[in-house]
């Protein structure tokens, strides 16, 4: 318990610990923003290079395909050599994959830039500002939209690869990313908590 203005308070606030956490988070977001800008640059250059190179350079001999490294399944899959034969052209699949990668990285960059601004406001002792409420709402909506949008693009790419490999009757199931949708909802709840905080802050500021 602590005394404040003649009143006994049951809560205390460890400002030193809070400032340490804020500093670490600020540095992580700064480094991430710079890193992601570099990554976006590389992706744009790569997509540009692939688009302007001749189509013939992207012929891939499927007889050379012996294993598939699936990051999604976290497994290295051995491929039946009789299953995939012939030569396929992967130029537009590469461009599409690059575009999907660019979209993912841009989404992350958008979130980190907004988060960086929010943390600056919190560091300046204005956590419950109107701008911060809007920022968290935007991040939440971005996560919600990405939960529906990114699986769509991934599905389209996978569909295109399946058709290119002429496997046969393959149905690509469309699934939403529940983790991102749940994250989006949580962040929107957080934005509403900040809005309540703003109301309490105003109430406190208007109390003499």
């Amino acid at each position, binding site marked *: 318990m602590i005394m404040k*203005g*003649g*009143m006994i308070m049951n809560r205390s606030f460890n400002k030193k610990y809070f400032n340490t956490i804020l500093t670490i988070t600020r540095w992580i977001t700064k480094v991430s923003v710079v890193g992601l800008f570099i990554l976006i640059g590389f992706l744009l250059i790569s997509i540009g290079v692939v688009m302007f190179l001749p189509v013939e350079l992207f012929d891939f001999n499927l007889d050379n395909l012996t294993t598939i490294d699936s990051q999604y399944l976290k497994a290295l899959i051995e491929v039946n050599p009789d299953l995939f034969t012939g030569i396929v052209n992967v130029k537009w699949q590469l461009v599409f994959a690059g575009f999907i990668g660019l979209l993912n990285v841009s989404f992350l960059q958008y979130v980190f830039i907004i988060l960086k601004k929010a943390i600056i406001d919190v560091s300046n002792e204005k956590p419950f500002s109107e701008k911060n409420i809007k920022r968290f709402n935007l991040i939440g909506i971005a996560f919600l939209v990405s939960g529906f949008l990114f699986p769509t693009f991934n599905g389209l790419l996978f569909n295109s690869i399946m058709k290119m490999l002429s496997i046969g009757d393959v149905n690509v199931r469309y699934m939403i990313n529940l983790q991102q949708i749940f994250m989006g909802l949580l962040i929107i709840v957080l934005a509403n908590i900040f809005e309540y905080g703003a109301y309490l802050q105003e*109430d406190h500021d*208007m*109390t*003499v």
Partner: protein
Amino acid sequence: MPIITRLDRVLADRKMQLSELSEKVGVSMPNLSNLKTGKVRAIRFSTLEKVCEVLECQPGDILEFKE
């Protein structure tokens, strides 16, 4: 707002400036000015106690209820 403050009247009676009251009570000038003009939402008992102590008055002298 039904609760109105008569701080200006009491200050005039005691011939005290708002700045002097601010110094003695330990509340900032902008906040006291807001109290005087009725722009505050609430007043803490601790603040009311200090104001009454300095102005040597009752809470009812500073606050009035008007429907």
